[in-house]
């Protein structure tokens, strides 16, 4: 690794991103984020979906203007996409109507480079990245892994100083992703990549530990850098190394401990039913997770990383489940562990009707949105209420995406627990077929 030089490549100071709502306070996505990137390092932005890490990447790339704060690129304030920054997309973002070579050359063409020079550069990169022989293929003829190689080649061919990667491997299957990671790291340590630094967004803890020199762990609502973790291991790294495992465990702990004490949004009083964001996780998954935890070998208590591995879930898939169970007091989260509560055990042992009753009780007690919806329905003469109105109230307190997810979660859980019904066609809540309603 090169020694860090004095002028950083990139500097983000006091960055804040917020949606402005007319009636209420701003909905904050990113708050007070600082980031400095030196030449020669790979840095990960690690966090759950919705922690604003992708937003930060877009701010750094110049695609998005921050609401407040300063972004300095090579000592100058950033104004839109800068030369010297290239990005690899989660969805690959290849042009389906262009061949591999044409896709790779698109950045060079935009610079106004001549045909011969373009071809020379693109052929070098295509060979480097292992795409030789596919020059004239169209993206749809390639497998996912090969497509992402094209995305990588397209970014590398412009010889950027900074390579941005937005969850580059998360759309790939496990084996392909691993091959691509290893290939990339090999090229990096052999200094074959024409780049100075990499900034990547990921939700995969092991990926971050495997590839990066530094990891910034993000917390959600609003997104903040919660902790910065240096990864001291030399390349190539071994996932089975006890020190590696320990660091992964530690990061799990950081991510769960934060969620335990996670306050609801700071701008609104906590007793209003519309301030509490919910994860839209299915009740089947919740029940399945509780059953797994109750059974051996866990017997009511599990360490999160091995549990995630056993269930073949990523950290950011397992954590919402765990948090939802904690919210409903079916389980408790502490220090990277999850433990079933007494109510949780009763739920596992109960039959279908009893489970629904327990779930309904938990919803009424701990999810403020659900009784609020039910109250509205009880008060109306026709016992109907439009979903739109709840969505709008939620949007006063959270970003539209969160509002959508929270509402979907409420609909799914309320339906399962038979607190209310929902008419998809009319987008209305109602009390049809609900016992004891009216």
């Amino acid at each position, binding site marked *: 690794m090169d020694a860090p030089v004095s002028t950083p490549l990139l500097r983000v100071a006091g960055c804040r991103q917020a949606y*402005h709502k007319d009636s209420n306070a701003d909905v904050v996505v990113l708050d007070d984020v600082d980031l400095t990137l030196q030449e020669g390092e790979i840095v990960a932005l690690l966090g759950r979906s919705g922690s604003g890490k992708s937003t930060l990447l*877009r701010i750094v*790339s*110049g*695609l*998005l*203007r921050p609401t407040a704060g300063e972004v300095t690129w090579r000592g100058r304030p950033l*104004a*839109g*996409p800068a*030369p010297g*920054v*290239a*990005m690899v*997309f*989660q*969805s*690959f*973002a290849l*042009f*389906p*109507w*262009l061949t591999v070579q044409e896709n790779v050359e*698109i*950045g060079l*063409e*935009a*610079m*106004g480079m001549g045909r011969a020079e373009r071809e020379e550069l693109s052929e070098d990169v295509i060979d480097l990245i292992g795409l030789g022989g596919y020059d004239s293929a*169209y*993206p*749809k*003829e390639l497998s996912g892994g090969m*497509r992402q190689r094209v995305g990588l080649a*397209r970014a590398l061919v*412009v010889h950027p100083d900074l390579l941005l990667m937005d969850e580059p491997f998360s759309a790939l299957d496990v084996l392909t992703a691993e091959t691509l990671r290893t290939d990339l790291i090999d090229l990096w340590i052999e200094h074959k990549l024409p780049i100075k630094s990499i900034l990547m967004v990921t939700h995969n803890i092991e990926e971050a530990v495997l590839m990066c020199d530094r990891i910034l762990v993000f917390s959600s609502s609003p997104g903040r850098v919660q902790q910065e973790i240096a990864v001291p291991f030399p390349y190539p790294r071994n996932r089975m190394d006890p020190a590696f495992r320990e660091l992964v465990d530690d990061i799990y702990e950081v991510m769960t401990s934060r969620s335990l004490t996670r306050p609801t949004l700071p701008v609104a009083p906590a007793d209003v039913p519309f301030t509490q964001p919910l994860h839209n996780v299915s009740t089947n998954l919740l029940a399945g997770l509780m059953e797994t935890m109750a059974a051996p070998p866990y017997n009511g208590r599990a360490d999160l990383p091995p549990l995630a591995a056993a269930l073949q879930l990523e950290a950011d898939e397992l954590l919402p489940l765990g948090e939802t169970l904690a919210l409903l007091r079916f389980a408790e989260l502490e220090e990277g562990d999850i433990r079933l509560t007494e109510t949780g055990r009763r739920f596992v042992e109960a039959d279908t009707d009893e489970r629904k009753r327990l779930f309904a009780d938990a919803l009424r007690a701990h999810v403020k949105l659900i009784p609020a919806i039910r109250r509205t329905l009880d008060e109306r003469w026709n016992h109907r209420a439009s979903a739109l109105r709840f969505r709008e109230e939620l949007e006063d307190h959270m970003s539209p995406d969160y509002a959508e997810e929270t509402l979907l979660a409420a609909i799914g859980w309320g339906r399962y627990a038979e607190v209310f019904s929902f008419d998809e*066609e009319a987008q209305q809540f109602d009390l049809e077929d609900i016992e004891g309603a009216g």
Partner: protein
Amino acid sequence: MRSTTQPAVLSGRRLPNIWDIAALCCVVGVLVGMAMAARGTLVPIDALQVAPIDLSPRRLPEYALRTTLRMFAAMACSLLFTFTYAPLAAKSRRAGLIMIPVLDILQSVPILGFLSFTIAFFMSLFPGRVLGLELAAIFAIFTSQAWNMAFSFYQSLTMVPTDLDEATRLFRLTSWQRFWRLEVPFAMPGLVWNTMISMSGGWFFVVASEAITLGDNTWQLPGIGSYVAAALAERNIGAVFWAIFAMLLVILAYDQVLFRPLVAWSARFRFEMVPGATAEDPWLLAMLRRTSVLREAGEAVQRFFGVFTGLRLGRPAGYAIRRVRHARAGDAVFALAVGVAVVLLLRKVAGFVALELSWTDVGAAVGLGAITMVRVVVMIVLATLVWVPIGVWLGLRPAWARRVQPLVQFLAAFPANLLFPPFVLAIVTFHLDVDVFLSPLMVLGTQWYILFNVIAGAAAFPGDLREAAENFHVRGIHWWRRVILPGVLPHLVTGAIAASGGSWNAAIVAEVASWGDTHLVAHGLGAYIAQATDAGDFHRIVLGVVVMSLYVVVFNRLLWRPLYAYASRRANLG
């Protein structure tokens, strides 16, 4: 070519709003303006002498060629319009506010109704010259093609995938490069499909616009349409059949040389990452790809095109345009400007119409419109009853569907007005009720949209659902109601929308018919417009056209869009 792209009409809001009303005023105002500009200049055109139509079949190739040329001239104009209007509407939020409703209204205006204005207008531009007539005909065809193409292009421009948009901005493509590398290719499949549908529809109008009677003047441009008109006037049924035969050949050539290769070629732009079932190359495309001389020529063209579209014109996009903070003052000025324009046009329209028309006339037009509406509805229902079972039967048998589908698309392109004379002859001969028996002519050309959409829908019906239905012994009425009808409903609605739109238009030529000196007139708004045209009564033409446009707009908004939304919501899982 199984894709039945949803018609461009279906997007967007449902209920008419203030901008729609503004748009309606603008469109009608411009029409009236054209009519007024043209009114005074009718007299000198009498002197115009056009060579009479020769009914000898030997002249038909020349006439067919002229008809085809007119069609392509109009297509060129339509493409030009599409590539300017749509980007403008998409890039400027303010312009889009009024431009899109205008397009929506224009789609609903019965084109044949204002043929008379445009003829008068263009002849006043080029007094005493055939050029005016030619331009009027081309303009009429243009108006039948351009709107849905522009709409489709506009829609694609607004739906460019976010990640590709980000990629072009991040790699700093200039606006010109972005247009050709991202926006045009992304819009291509929809645009090609709509262009082809427009062309198919255009044959109907090219035939209708060649022989025009306005007041005491009748003009005939050399072409197949005039040939048929002349044959009707001379009661020469043989010549009619010759014309139908010639048109068949033209459509066949169009289908083989243009339609199929273009649609197959545009498949490469389809935005999908799974290699779809690639249909076999049409013979022409295969020939182009395999013949080395042609291939090299093609590559040279491609290289030139690549350089041309890669020019660094315009600037790279900076930060994304934030739509939250728009200039309120600018909006106010814009709204005011539109408001003033609308008021001025409205006064013009009101003055023009009030000059000769009373509320009685309006009432009469609305009443006749209701009759035509009943006719359209009954005909669409009948066509549905006939073609849905047949379409489902064919669609569920892939071997049949493959063979029949091209034939049906071919039939949809065939100008149905050429087939009117035999019907008219039958009505005259057997003294049938005009009000009833002229009606089928309205759906003669448009029913095929229902058939080919239903075939496509049934062919796309999931195999596992069919198997499940069989496994549970779902049969008979039960099977139709619970299984296949909901499955093909979105396709059926798509087809019915196209068919009903076309039928309104066809009413203008289908509700009146003549055979020599015998004139058949049904009651309806179409006949009202046609007769007003014959009489050169601009006021009643405007009234008729406006009333018909309103019927179509209201029909679309209150029936078709909700129905389509319902059908597609129901038919999709998740």
